[in-house]
């Protein structure tokens, strides 16, 4: 739908839009064993934009998200078809190094999952494995800026060497965001990052997503319509493994093209 609309644009316009697309999925299909979870999804992710993926449970939002940094590779019976590009480069190409890809496309999970290490070591984990810093000073610097970006610095600066698992749920999730930010990714994927948090912690994370947008491209899966409306500029609606429509968030929430989207937003199913 969206793709069809785009093909009608002038060639020059297409070119500029291609450039502003950070990631592009074409005919993405996913099978878990014999069961097909995604059907020919075509979706563009724009640079420095928050894209929300919405839709009822089990419609394939997480599955699509995990395709974007190949986390599906870690699931035994999962097969991905179609093409996904990051800045024009096919990420499923055999020449692509997954390690490098995941450094560029970071991920924040549904349940906060800090490592059973200190706060400092949690944040320094990514930079260590990618060799992003040499000296202690460099590491200190990365840890500090990442925690500042995640809005956690003031709360933890006096106890950097205490266990990350000792923080509250909301703080743990922001620690995970800091951990992802520390490897300077270009894209950050978030799978229902607030579903395990209370409203105040949720508000903090949403605010953080707002701020991160200027430096990162963000894709967020969410169950909450309000959250999608608050944090995203683009929204993609999934249903039964298919992309129903993708458009400006304002448009989706006020005047969607598809009646299924309308029904879902109005709470008529899901």
């Amino acid at each position, binding site marked *: 739908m969206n793709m069809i609309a785009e093909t009608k644009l002038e060639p020059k316009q297409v070119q500029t839009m291609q450039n502003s697309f950070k990631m592009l999925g074409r005919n993405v299909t996913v099978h878990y064993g014999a069961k097909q979870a995604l059907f020919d999804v075509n979706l563009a992710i724009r640079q420095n934009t928050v894209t929300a993926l919405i839709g009822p449970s089990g419609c394939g939002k997480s599955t699509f998200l995990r395709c974007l*940094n190949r*986390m599906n590779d*870690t699931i*035994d019976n999962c097969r991905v078809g179609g093409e996904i590009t990051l800045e024009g480069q096919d990420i499923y190409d055999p020449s692509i190094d*997954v*390690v*490098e*890809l*995941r*450094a560029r496309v*970071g*991920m924040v*999970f549904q*349940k906060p*999952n*800090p*490592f*059973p*290490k200190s706060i400092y070591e949690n944040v320094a*984990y*990514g930079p260590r*494995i*990618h060799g992003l810093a040499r000296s202690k000073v460099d590491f200190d610097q990365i840890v500090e800026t990442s925690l500042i970006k995640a809005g956690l610095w003031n709360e933890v600066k006096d106890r950097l060497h205490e266990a990350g*698992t000792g923080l509250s749920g909301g703080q743990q999730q922001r620690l*995970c965001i800091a*951990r*992802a930010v520390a*490897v300077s990714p270009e894209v950050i994927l978030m799978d229902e990052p607030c579903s395990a948090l209370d409203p105040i912690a949720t508000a903090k994370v949403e605010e953080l997503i707002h701020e991160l947008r200027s430096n990162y491209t963000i894709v967020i899966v969410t169950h909450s319509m309000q959250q999608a409306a608050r944090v995203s500029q683009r929204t993609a609606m999934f249903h039964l493994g298919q992309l129903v429509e993708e458009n400006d968030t304002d448009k989706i929430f006020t005047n969607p093209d598809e009646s299924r989207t309308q029904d879902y937003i109005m709470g008529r199913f899901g």
Partner: protein
Amino acid sequence: MTSSMLILIVALIGIFAYFAGRIRAAGSNGRTHSRPGYHGAYVALSALIPALALVLVWSIAAPIYINGKVHAALPSDLKSDPAIEALSFNSVVGISRGLETIPASEVAAARSGTKTWNEVLAAGNVPVAGDLRPEIISAAQSMNAMTESSRSTLAAIAVAVSLVGGFLGYRRVSARFRARNLVERVILVGLVLCSSIAILTTIGIVFSMLSEAVRFFAVVPPHQFFFGTVWDPRFAAAGSGGAGGQFGLIPLLAGTLYIAFVAMLFAVPVGLFSAIYMSEYASPKFRALAKPALEVLAGIPTIVYGFFALTAVGPFLRDLSSSLNHLVTGDASNFIQAQSVITAGIVMGIMLIPFVSSLSDDIITQVPRSLRDGSLGLGATRSETIKKVVLPAALPGIVGALLLTASRAVGETMIVVLAAGVAARLQLNPFEPMTTVTVKIVNQLTGDLEFTSPQTLVAFALGITLFAITLMLNIYALYIVRKYREQYE
């Protein structure tokens, strides 16, 4: 009436009580508090528990009482020496058993004097000493009579108690009677009793070992035992006061720890790496096949491993060392003995591999998937994730598992006997034989025993020492494992 008969009758009363209670509850008008089954169970329990408790107490108390009576009735000249008294009492018991199997006609013949008691008893396969005193026979007969009357009294009382209990229980059954709660409480008490049996037996074992060990330390001062460096408990002739011999624990303890250490040196890396492979890399199909196969290894009796050490590993190492020596120095003498610390260590290590791998595998798979995902999502490779996230998270649990394994290594006997020999030596060369605490316990307790000499009593001192070591290892291991569990709850 035999006890099994009695128990059968009480059980029948119980079954009858169950149905009676059930029917009465079902027949009572209004909504009953508990389902009829609970009422039935309540009535059955009130018929069974007091009666069975009585049977239990009686069958413990009655023999004690009867034995006391028999002892008292023995003629005074037999009671002057405790040894003779014990001997006479044993023959009373033997004859009283024999009298029950010998046909009544024979007994009558002996009584009337047509046959001698010796003939009759010998024909009934009862061993008797040459001169059989009439007091012994009469004591045996009175013992049998007392036993018989005790049995029938018990039967009568038990059946009566059972009937009365059942009746009282039956009377209580009514719509509002809370049978369910009472039955639940009885079940709870039963479960508590069962679990305390395990604990009580452990405590009993410890105390029996402790009391024997105390007797040992009365003869041999503790510091000579715990700090002595020579193990040489020569068997002194009986009655010579048990003196002589040296009971140094150190060579045995050193051997135990040395062999266990060598075994862990082999078992830990192999077991741990196989656990990592199994939990992190193996395909589900391979895992489903290999894990049970490894666990089968854990079920092989250790004597089989000892056999393997004796016939395969030991000779192999000996021949290997002699050919190596020949290559290097031209001298074909072997520097590894067939029975040596290293042989026992390797074979015991093989035995321990499945324990290490199976326990660690369980712990590694317990590390939540979300942690792995978090690490992989940051671009870590699989081995980096294992090294930096999974293993550190699992480490306390793995250490606990290794301590549990170590306590098995410390307690192992059969492999050591066959693979490292029985010579208690204090030395450091892993190619020479050494021996362990458990082997010496077996050594001291086999053959002709005299439970008063320090040569046998030392086994209990060794046992209690070993028990203390493994207990501490286990407690520490459980403490660590528990601490680890809390992390993810």
